[in-house]
């Protein structure tokens, strides 16, 4: 094989790989990108039914209810609106009322059915999206970011 042909072969294999990867990525993006929404987005009807989304905010104080068959019901709030959520399974160790939480699942009627409740390793960790959602609804306090979350206080 001539030098030029060799170079061409390597370039072609490289390009083919990149092309395959790009095609795979594009087709996977369609199905696997999950948008983040706040309770206000849901209340305002910005969220399609049955589409997989992430819903985040604070777990409303006093809203956690244990139901039969390992189902837990609770409400996620951004201070302006609150959405009812159900989840079947073991909640992460650091799931607590008044703390920031991100759930992934689908909206079924007025209830958000969570398939996953994202865990965190650190009580003081606030997912960036939740912090942003709280800022947007005007309920963000520096304190909330430090873990001692209080909803309904004056925004910062």
């Amino acid at each position, binding site marked *: 094989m001539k030098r030029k042909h060799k170079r061409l072969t390597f370039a072609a294999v490289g390009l083919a790989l990149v092309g395959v*990867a790009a095609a795979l990525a594009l087709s996977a993006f369609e199905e696997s990108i999950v948008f983040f929404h706040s309770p206000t987005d849901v209340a305002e009807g910005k969220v399609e039914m049955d589409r997989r989304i992430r819903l985040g905010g604070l777990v409303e104080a006093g809203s956690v209810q244990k139901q039969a068959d390992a189902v837990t019901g609770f409400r996620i709030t951004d201070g302006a609106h609150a959405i009812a959520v159900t989840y079947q399974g073991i909640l992460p160790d650091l799931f607590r009322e008044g703390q920031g939480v991100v759930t992934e699942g689908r909206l079924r009627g007025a209830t958000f059915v969570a398939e996953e409740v994202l865990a965190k390793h650190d009580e003081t960790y606030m997912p960036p999206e939740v912090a942003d959602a709280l800022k947007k609804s005007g309920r963000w306090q520096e304190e909330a970011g430090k873990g001692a979350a209080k909803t309904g206080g004056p925004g910062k």
Partner: protein
Amino acid sequence: MTAELGHFAVILALFVAAVQATLPLIGAQRGDAQWMAVARPAALLQFLLVAVAFGCLTNLYVTSDFSVVNVAANSHTDKPLLYKISGVWGNHEGSMLLWVLILALFGSAVAAFGANLPPALRARVLAIQALIAVGFYLFILLTSNPFERLIPAPANGRDLNPLLQDPGLAFHPPMLYLGYVGFSMAFSFAIAALIEGRVDAAWARWVRPWTLAAWCFLTAGIGLGSWWAYYELGWGGWWYWDPVENASFMPWLAGTALLHSATVVEKRDTLKGWTVLLAIITFSMSLLGTFLVRSGVLTSVHAFATDPARGVFILVLLIIVIGGSLALYAWRGPQLVSAGLFQPISREGGLLFNNLVMATATAAVLLGTLYPLLLDAVGGGKVSVGPPFFNAVFIPLMLPMLAVMAVGPLLHWKRGDWRAAVQRLWPAMVAALAAAAGAWALVTDGPFLGPVGLALAAWLGVGTLVELAERLRLGRENLGRSLARLARQPRAAWGMTLAHLGLAVTIAGMTGAGAWVEESIQVMAPGDTVRLAGYEFRFDGARPTRGANYVATTGRFTVSRDGRAVVVLNPEKRVYNVSGQPTTEAGIETRLTGDLYAVVGDRGTTADGRPGFVTRLYFNPLVAWMWGGLMIMVAGGALSLTDRRHRVGAPARRGIAAQAAGAD
């Protein structure tokens, strides 16, 4: 006093690093031997100073000096000694100090053992190391000082996050950092080579052991982290394609490619520019990983509270290092002239194919990891890219690579005969078909990838053994001579065989646990049973227990199969005294065929109204193979490192060039 001493040592180290970063570089440019000679003592002194600083911080932790903010926030007098020590790096400030300690350690190793490196190359390498160090010392001193005082001192500390009080995680960060930071050596050598405008076989021979060592540590670190997530988080999973996990995986992918392309430079004196570029990319991925983990810009299940100011600092550092090195590469890279090209079907061709796939996979993971940031930056909304994306892109890319991986080592350098190689691989083909058929017969309703994954694992495993047999000329000469050859195999060759075998075992484990995992979540009252994968889990109830610094609810499951008791699992849900933070300790029985895994959660009521506990049960087929395979890979890398030919800086430049020309 200790805290001030530590702080002072870091400041001194900054100044030493500043000198080490400038004088030797200028000296090397001017050919001034005296200025170049500054590099070695400076590197050793710098290491000494950071070691003093690190020792001070460790001392503060061990003696529980709560007048230091960092200790008060992350330690407690009741904590076991191991976790007092691991607490040093179980927090942001301390972990950055560990970062620079390891950076200085590698620099001092070059200074101490690089006696036969050409003086100009050594001076430049050490100067680049110091330049990186300067950035991180500034970072520590300006944004993350671990020695800050707290006045008045509290009576006791706030304790280390209980999740981190675990032997697996005690050693995970040092391992990971030895890997991340170890790639700085390859980077420094690459930048030095660009300044010199020359890369040769000797250069590759110096770069390889450092890259290999870093790769071993990184592999072990990723393995430890994944194992920890598996047993400590109680989700039964071992990899989530989480940004923080990807942050450690990208340098691993790029580093693996670098390891292989450096081999081509060493043996065949070609692919030079590409190898230098890979070295730059690999370390850039390490820096990017540090940025992603430390800045908290992405939602991660492994994230800890973060401070945005630090993120910005690392981002600037990242841009300077990556931008600067790529600019230098664009300017000087074309001067690196490689020896002639090789045929596409050849050993080099196989290695290059590995490189192309690894690089593409790195790019794909990078895209998926950074996409949420990019989209948010252009106002496209907040998204997350989850496992479906990575599985859909990453797995198809790996399949052809694994297929080629068994063939590559059988090809000759320069010009290979793929038909002959494939013909010799008939035992691997038989094994692959048998594995696929067996998997198909056992699990008919599983995903398509299950049998494919096992077939590839068998193909690679047996293919690697075929290659070993070829090297021994097994069956073509009498057995005695083959065995004599076996004893004479260089350790580097054994290393390759072991690492490839380890990957085959790991792939089998990933396939099993990924494709055929069985899970069951329910509320169980004492006496209830659940059937899973042919096993019967009987819940015998839960009782309160007490540990050194926690109280726990300990559940008891009796697992039986066909009426015979197999094992009793005792998962715990702990609540730590100081922080009140709960953690989950899964009950796991590891067997060759798979793990029995049980988690006990909160109290609940069963569907028919009886009181019980929420439980989560798993059968994870072959999952232990994954960590076993990773250990084999690390052992292979370590064995290769002990090879005489890889001993750090062992051969002089001239000697090597002659050897390289004579070899093969």
